[in-house]
């Protein structure tokens, strides 16, 4: 199988941004030493790490001392959320039913009581969050793109901003928040943990003696710099890129919606600019992903048959929409109009072919 000509799965991982590549290559030779050491290579490494932190803070509109680099977005979610729960001695937490599995796994591991708050058919949380010691809400949904109404409510709030960081301004109201560099065009293996100045937070895991008490292990300094460079570039470009991607996604939504018995899900307007999800009745999710791959389009699916767990997407289930025949399309920064046109042309053929096998 050849690589997809059109990679439409940036929500799983965005290709490396040119700014990240440049920063990474430059930092690889300079950022090898231990940033705690007082020798020159150590000072160089420390300088690069501090620059990465400052650039990330500036791009997000936060303070530099609120930024920590973790080993992944998942690690940032686990540390951010569990660190709040520990610091506030929480017994009860409330979260939307459509949080990323990183949040759900952290709460399964945590011994307290977690309440799942339902969402409407667009995937948006319904009503005010219930009374709890800590609240958890994503900035935008990673599978369907719907933006959540994140707001400060007086209770410590953890915001999983992995799906939107860089693409949309960071919503206000968080006590702690998390991002993932490979979702915006930085390298994988870099997460961003934000802990608001003045917020109580205690490391939920064994500590370490690094420069940043919120993290453990030797920092990947070149990757952190590359992540910061990509974030700055994405923020600088986002007005133009978002408008272009938003219009492309509108076209894909229309093309998918024109296929009989196809549910295009997620909010059509208040959404991530680059992402759309739809489900085709009577279609096998694995089959449609493979059929599109054969035609050169790389997409993701939340259907059970494409999941390692063989469970359907908990996001689609919570939205009470079809979980089978599901396709998530997410545009890369350099996705072209021609690629979108080609995808929109191929999609109805693929669905019709698969349905024909079932004599429907």
């Amino acid at each position, binding site marked *: 199988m050849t690589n997809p000509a059109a990679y439409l799965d940036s929500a799983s991982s965005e290709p490396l941004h040119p700014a990240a590549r440049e920063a990474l290559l430059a930092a690889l030779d300079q950022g090898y030493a231990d940033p705690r050491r007082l020798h020159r290579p150590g000072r160089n490494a420390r300088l690069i790490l501090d620059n990465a932190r400052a650039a990330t803070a500036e791009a997000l509109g936060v303070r530099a001392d609120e930024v920590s680099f973790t080993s992944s977005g998942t690690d940032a979610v686990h540390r951010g959320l569990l660190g709040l729960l520990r610091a506030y001695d929480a017994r009860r937490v409330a979260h939307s039913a459509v949080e990323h599995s990183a949040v759900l796994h952290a709460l399964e591991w945590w011994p307290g009581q977690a309440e799942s708050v339902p969402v409407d058919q667009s995937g948006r949380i319904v009503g005010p969050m219930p009374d709890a010691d800590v609240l958890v809400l994503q900035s935008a949904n990673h599978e369907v793109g719907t933006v959540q109404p994140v707001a400060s409510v007086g209770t410590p709030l953890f915001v999983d901003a992995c799906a939107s960081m860089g693409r949309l301004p960071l919503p206000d109201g968080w006590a702690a928040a998390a991002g993932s560099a490979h979702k915006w065009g930085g390298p994988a293996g870099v997460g961003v943990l934000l802990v608001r100045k003045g917020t109580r937070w205690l490391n939920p895991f064994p500590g370490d003696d690094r420069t940043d008490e919120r993290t453990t292990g030797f920092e990947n300094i070149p990757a952190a710099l590359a992540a910061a460079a990509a974030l700055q570039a994405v923020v600088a470009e986002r007005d133009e890129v978002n408008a272009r991607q938003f219009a492309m996604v509108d076209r894909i939504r229309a093309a998918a919606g024109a296929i009989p*018995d196809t*549910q295009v899900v997620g909010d059509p307007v208040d959404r991530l600019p680059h992402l759309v999800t739809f489900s085709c*009745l*009577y*279609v*096998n*999710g694995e089959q449609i992903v493979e059929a599109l791959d054969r035609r050169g389009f790389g997409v993701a699916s939340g*259907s*059970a*048959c494409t999941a390692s767990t*063989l*469970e*359907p997407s908990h996001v*689609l*289930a919570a939205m*009470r*929409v*079809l*979980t*089978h*025949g599901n396709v998530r399309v997410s545009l890369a920064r350099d996705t072209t109009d021609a690629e979108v046109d080609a995808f929109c042309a191929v999609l109805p053929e693929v669905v019709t072919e698969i349905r024909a096998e*079932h004599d*429907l």
Partner: protein
Amino acid sequence: MNTATLELDCRGQVCPMPVIELGRRIIDVEVGEVLAVVADDPAARHDVPAWCRMREHEYVGEDTADDGAPRFLVRRLA
């Protein structure tokens, strides 16, 4: 256990096969009658109700077959 006019044995079938069977066989019951889908695929629990919303039939609920397999009940409305 609810009374179903027709029961479809979709044990061992993976999505979307139970819903395809449901779509094919709903016309085999009269309007107002209940069709049961016995399916152990985890997606059926979500997709049978979702199909009912799309096709404007009534999702009656879930019970279990004699062997404990999940059984999903659909009332034909049109």
